[in-house]
């Protein structure tokens, strides 16, 4: 259990044009489950590996419980890591895999066996302790990798996309298991994923990264309700948030032919940002005969419980809009009217992409 602090931590790969991780500041509390998320190449895995001691910290520092980790080798950081491909030792049995770190610490055989059995029980692996990893299924291997981390009772867990090799169904159930296990063990955890659903469901707080830069570090609901910039707004949420180019006028924001009227407070905050990106989530747009926007339907995704209408604004054929609808939905090719719930508008400066107002 430990506090982890990224303090301006920077990693530059030799020959790279920009830092893989650029001055990352991330205060992680004791026992917190933090998820780093972003598209591939955003630096999330590098940031994790810097904490684990597998990448150099070229500038700034990373502290664990206040102790600077620059120059401290991995083995002295008391961190356990779960790798994407699990990295189980193929020549060792499940039990030996899980007990290897304890063996390296010089813990005696009986104590090792006890702790391995305890962890195996926790992960439902007791009957597999004598098997080799190659005789296990993907899900079981994943659990062994978790077990190897748990047995050590480390200060910090690092997990690098541990679910990406599992099938969709197993991924969902393992996701909840890991989150629940982490809450029970209360070990500070840094978890890397490119899957925003994993990020939203597992993390106490989520760090969204892009091109080596931290975009926002907040709780899942904050990220969803108050994205700090256009990138976060489009990355978090599925389907993605609708975004339109708008122009600020005296009495509202003009989207092509249509005029939408935000609250007077929001309008006030938008003063000075003439060109805006207007964001609105699909669930805050509704099919309505008296709607402000005219939409040409291109495609409808029927999910059973509800449906998503994909289309474009009638007067801007290049635009994209997604509308959540009930089961009673229009057909592709129809032209419909939709209304926007203006209390849930997100406004961003078109130039900087930063959020405007609260």
């Amino acid at each position: 259990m430990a506090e982890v602090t990224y303090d301006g931590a920077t990693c530059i790969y030799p020959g790279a044009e920009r830092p893989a991780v650029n001055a990352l500041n991330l205060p992680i509390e004791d026992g917190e489950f933090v998820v780093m998320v972003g598209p591939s190449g955003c630096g999330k895995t590098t940031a994790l590996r810097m904490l684990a001691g597998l990448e150099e910290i070229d500038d700034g520092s990373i502290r664990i419980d206040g102790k600077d980790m620059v120059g401290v080798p991995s083995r002295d950081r008391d961190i356990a890591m779960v790798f994407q491909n699990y990295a189980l030792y193929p020549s060792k049995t499940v039990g030996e895999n899980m007990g290897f770190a304890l063996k390296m610490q010089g813990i005696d055989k009986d104590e090792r066996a006890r702790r391995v059995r305890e962890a195996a029980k926790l992960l439902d692996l007791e009957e597999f302790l004598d098997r080799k990893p190659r005789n296990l299924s993907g899900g079981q291997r994943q659990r062994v990798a978790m077990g190897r981390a748990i047995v050590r009772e480390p200060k910090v867990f690092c997990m690098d996309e541990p679910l990406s090799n599992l099938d969709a169904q197993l991924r969902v159930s393992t996701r909840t298991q890991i989150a629940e296990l982490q809450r029970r063990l209360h070990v500070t955890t840094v978890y890397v994923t490119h899957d925003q659903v994993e990020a939203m469901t597992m993390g106490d707080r989520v760090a969204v990264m892009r091109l080596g830069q931290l975009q926002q570090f907040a709780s899942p609901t904050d990220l969803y309700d108050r994205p700090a910039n256009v990138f976060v707004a489009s990355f978090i949420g599925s389907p993605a948030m609708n975004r339109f180019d708008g122009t600020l006028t005296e009495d509202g924001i003009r989207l092509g032919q249509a005029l939408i009227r935000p609250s007077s407070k929001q309008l006030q905050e938008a003063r000075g940002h003439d060109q805006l990106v207007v964001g609105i989530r699909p669930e805050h747009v509704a099919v309505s005969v008296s709607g402000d926007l005219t939409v040409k339907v291109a495609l409808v995704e029927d999910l059973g419980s509800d449906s998503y209408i994909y289309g474009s604004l009638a007067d801007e054929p290049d635009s994209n809009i997604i509308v959540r609808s009930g089961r009673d939905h229009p057909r592709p090719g129809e032209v419909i009217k939709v209304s926007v719930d203006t209390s849930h508008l997100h406004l961003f400066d078109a130039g900087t992409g930063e959020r405007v107002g609260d």
Partner: protein
Amino acid sequence: MTSADVAVPAAQTAEPALYTGKRAKRRSNSLTWGIVGWVVGIIFFFPVLWMVLTSFKTEAEAYTNTPHIVFSPTLSQYKAVFSSGLWPYVANSAFATIVSTILVLVLATPCAFALSLRPVKKTRDVLFFFISTKMLPVVAAIIPIYIAARDLHLLDNIFTLVILYTAMNLPIAVWMMRSFFLEVPGELLEAAEMDGAPLRRTVVEVILPIVAPGLAATALICCIFSWNEFFFAVNITATQAATVPVFLVGFISSEGLYFAQLAAAATVATLPVVLAGWIAQRQLVRGLSFGAIK
């Protein structure tokens, strides 16, 4: 609806015909390759068969033209070989082979480890340098080697052969071992590092079990090369340190070839390698195809 119903049976009848065609082609293909395989195999195996057959003939039978396939086998040639002082040569060969192979493995393993898992800027140049030593014909190096051995009073000394065989096999061993080390996933090393294992424990407990088949294959190749080496042995040994291949040449004397005896001696000389290859067959195949498929 009807059009779909009609279309389906048509597709169903068409598909099997297509598959049979493909399958027939594949079968004839594999037959062709099978024949090629057998022909090449027989071409390789025939001299060996000839050698073994001849070793059971009398000298007179060995010279018949046309050769006799049916003959009454005799062990007299083997008796002659064993009574003509074979054992010191076998002992020399075994010593040079085993010691040089051990030395090669001891030196090549850390070297290949460094070159594959901890590469530096000039790693490729170093690798090229190693293999470049195999580009010079051995005969071009024999005079300096001979003079050096003579001046160091190491002529006809088995340790000279050990050193030469070690040097001869080291580049191949480094290249082979390197390709096996490259197959070790980097994450395993990182996992061991995270688990707190020092380098020595990582190598012994994690890496070596993975590359064991490769190690076995390398060892076998080194053994075969050393055991069969003739050129160095014939040039820098005389009586004390001569090896089995040198012994074999003794049967080609000025009075003429002792064909059957030579065949018997050659069969005896081949046996250890065949045995070692047969024992290590599974490991060897795994080792030699290690880099090909994951």
